[in-house]
């Protein structure tokens, strides 16, 4: 299978690889997937007092599309408010990266990672976690 140029770009030059201090109250961490399934994504956000995401980092164990999806997600997250971040849909990622059907689940994982990071942040700061729809896969 050939990869789109955007996937290759994110894969070769992944943005925002790294780790934020998960002990900090304004950092939310999402860890989704499982080693047995061949994909694990960890996505972290740092949020300021105005509910704006000031930093985002990821690390991913998975295929090229999974790495590209999470790299793209961190790019999109920065500067968004938490509420805006909640709106990111996996199909936006599919479209932007031109992922083929067999790679849609890699983008689903990225959406799950975003939501899971946001929920971690919410719970840490005394909000109710947002009920997520059942996983699409």
């Amino acid at each position, binding site marked *: 299978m050939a*990869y789109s140029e955007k996937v290759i770009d994110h*894969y070769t030059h*992944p943005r925002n*690889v790294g*780790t934020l201090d998960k002990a900090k109250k304004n950092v939310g961490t999402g*860890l*989704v*997937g*499982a*080693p*047995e*399934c*061949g*994909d*694990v*994504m*960890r996505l972290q956000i740092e949020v300021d007092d105005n509910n704006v995401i000031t930093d985002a980092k990821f*690390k*991913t*164990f*998975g*295929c*090229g599309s*999974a*790495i590209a999806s999470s790299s793209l997600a961190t790019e999109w997250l920065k500067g968004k408010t938490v509420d805006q971040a909640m709106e990111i849909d996996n199909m936006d990622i599919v479209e932007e990266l031109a992922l083929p059907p*067999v790679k849609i*689940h890699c983008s689903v994982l990225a959406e*799950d990672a975003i939501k899971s990071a946001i929920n971690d942040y919410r719970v840490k700061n005394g909000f109710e976690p947002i009920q997520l729809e059942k*996983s699409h*896969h």
Partner: protein
Amino acid sequence: MLYLDNLQIMLELPIYLDNNATTPMDPRVLEAMLPYFTNKFGNAASRNHSFGWVAEEAVDYARGQVAKIIGATEKEIIFTSGATESNNLAIKGVYEMYQQKGNHIITVVTEHKCVLDSAHHIERIGGKVTYLQVKPDGLIDLKELEDAITDKTILISVMYANNEIGVIQPVKEISAIAHKHGVLFHTDATQAVGKIPVDVIADGIDLLSFTGHKLYGPKGCGALYVRRKNPRVKVTAQIDGGGHERGMRSGTLNVPGIVGFGKACEIAMEEMASESVRLAALRDKLEKGVTVMEETYVNGNTQNRLPHVCNVSFKYVEGEGLMMAMKDLAVSSGSACTSASLEPSYVLKSLGLNDDLAHSSIRFGLGRFTTEEEVDYAIEVTKKAVTHLRELSPLWEMFKEGIDLDSIEWAEH
């Protein structure tokens, strides 16, 4: 890095290291085939003019070359479209022919899909199949094999060497057990013929499948060996028609393919001894070179193994992602992400490998045209890619922090 750049200048990229999937054709094979596409185009079954005779003569000659590499005689070779067809014919053909004797066959979970699916077919039409498990090194347990034999067993089918890990089964011992119980022994020797010595007499083989394109011959041409003496074995044809190949496989013979297959066998026989020594040394160099990295594991038995293949798991990186980083190397992976089924390699899983290690595996398959410079380059590219991906891997980070990954509750999906 400079070293890499220097190497790269001398190399033509990408480098082909997937010789267990298929091999490039040897130019000498192509040369032998060419006349049979054009002026020597006859149908080998045309008995009444010289076009037919020329084709028939070429097929007879090739049949001798193909027979010789496995120690058989010409009359024991049935030409097919490849090992898939040969395996189908062997398993279904023996089942149909010997149904009166019994309805049970024995095979192994690590067989190629075409053997396993033929076995499933036998089950669908009322037969019984035992699928033997393998030990963690990929070899079968001979006692388990013998215990599985019943008075209804008519066939044991065990591959000579495995396509993913290269492990060579104890074929002589298996055939001895089969014959002790009056059971026929078939082996899928697709990966072995032309790479290591295979001899149907010494090995006690009753039926053997192999194919041209794994030994520097053309695709779409293979053979089934069917023993004619001690015992005389018969298979029921699966393709009916004009009665070619002594009625066991109808269809106009693929003359250029057969000529090429024959030539490929002849060359392989001549060069096997030196080629296998050269490739084993290169393979060992590659294997040593990449396993100096921590948390890398060689899959399968390394004592009884084909000389040109190694299968390595690079823990904490995922195989498809890894192949993408090794884009100048053509290799294959047991990762699920490379297959439509999203299931990692069943061969690696049957060794007892955890799914995560199966997902992290790469198969390197060297071949006749692999050079030492290519191996050196492959080592550097692989190390660089694994290091890059481990920097991206949350699992690697956790491992480095001493976190037990098994203690985490993963959200399975």
